[in-house]
């Protein structure tokens, strides 16, 4: 069965969409590649796509994000060239998530290095009445 995926690079990444496209051409698999401003769209047989996804991810483990796409690239039902322009359906979600991709990339990098996540802010809450009473007694007794 055919499969289509978005490959999106984080703003922190040194990998360009053209680098990913070249890498896919080097692999020599029967995959259609479409370069876009945010990354590439790849389309091909499911086995080829799954194998390629692993190799693309290895180019920059924490800065490359991959997502499934329902329609093949250039499909007239989605392609803006055929629909007379305007934002592509799904653009706003991708725009919103692209803005926080650098943060997620740093999170992934620190997770890969085994760094511990800082405690939640909620843990630094106000002391309860009982705790406050205990603190006062300890301080002034």
């Amino acid at each position, binding site marked *: *069965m*055919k*499969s*289509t995926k*978005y490959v*999106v690079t984080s703003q922190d990444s040194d990998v360009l969409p053209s680098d990913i496209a070249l890498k896919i051409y080097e692999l020599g698999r029967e995959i259609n590649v479409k370069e876009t401003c945010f990354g590439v769209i790849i389309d091909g047989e499911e086995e080829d796509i799954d194998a390629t996804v692993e190799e693309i*991810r290895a180019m920059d483990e924490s800065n490359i*994000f*991959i*997502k*499934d*796409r*329902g*329609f*093949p690239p250039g*499909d007239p*039902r989605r392609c803006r060239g055929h629909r007379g322009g305007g934002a592509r*359906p*799904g*653009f*706003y*979600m*991708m725009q*919103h*998530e692209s803005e*926080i*991709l650098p*943060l*997620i990339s*740093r*999170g*992934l990098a*620190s*997770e890969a290095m085994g*760094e511990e*996540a*800082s405690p*939640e802010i909620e843990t630094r809450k106000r002391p309860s009445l009982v705790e406050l009473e205990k603190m006062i007694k300890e301080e002034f007794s």
Partner: protein
Amino acid sequence: MVKVMVYPPTSMILADLVERTGHEALVVSKEVRKKVNTPGLDSPPLNMTPEDPKKGLKYAAVDVPSGVRGRMSLLGPMIEEADAAIIIRNDNCTLGCTGCARTNELTRFLLKTKRIPILELDYPEDEFQAKRFVHKIHEFLEGLN
């Protein structure tokens, strides 16, 4: 491998994080792909088959707006398939096919009443929150094994 439903069901970040750990992310684009590959449908998901409203009726009554039932015909089978779920609370970005607030409420409700492991989070706003976000998701997904 566990099937993990992500909410918003179009989220790239969640789907990517789930698939990095070797699990299968249940996202709406996979359901749309099935429709795209179905001959005779001119413009899925706007076009429906006679079977779709029946699927939607399983989750929402006939007097519920047709958009909710149409969306539930895609999301309902995903919810049934899910073994675990990750839900984003501050989902202000849901627009387009995931822009129906009532469908989103129903999806979250059905996931919560399904008695499967659920992780609820907010999208991070700074680096510390992002580290916790990634760490919590990793911990949750590793726990599913």
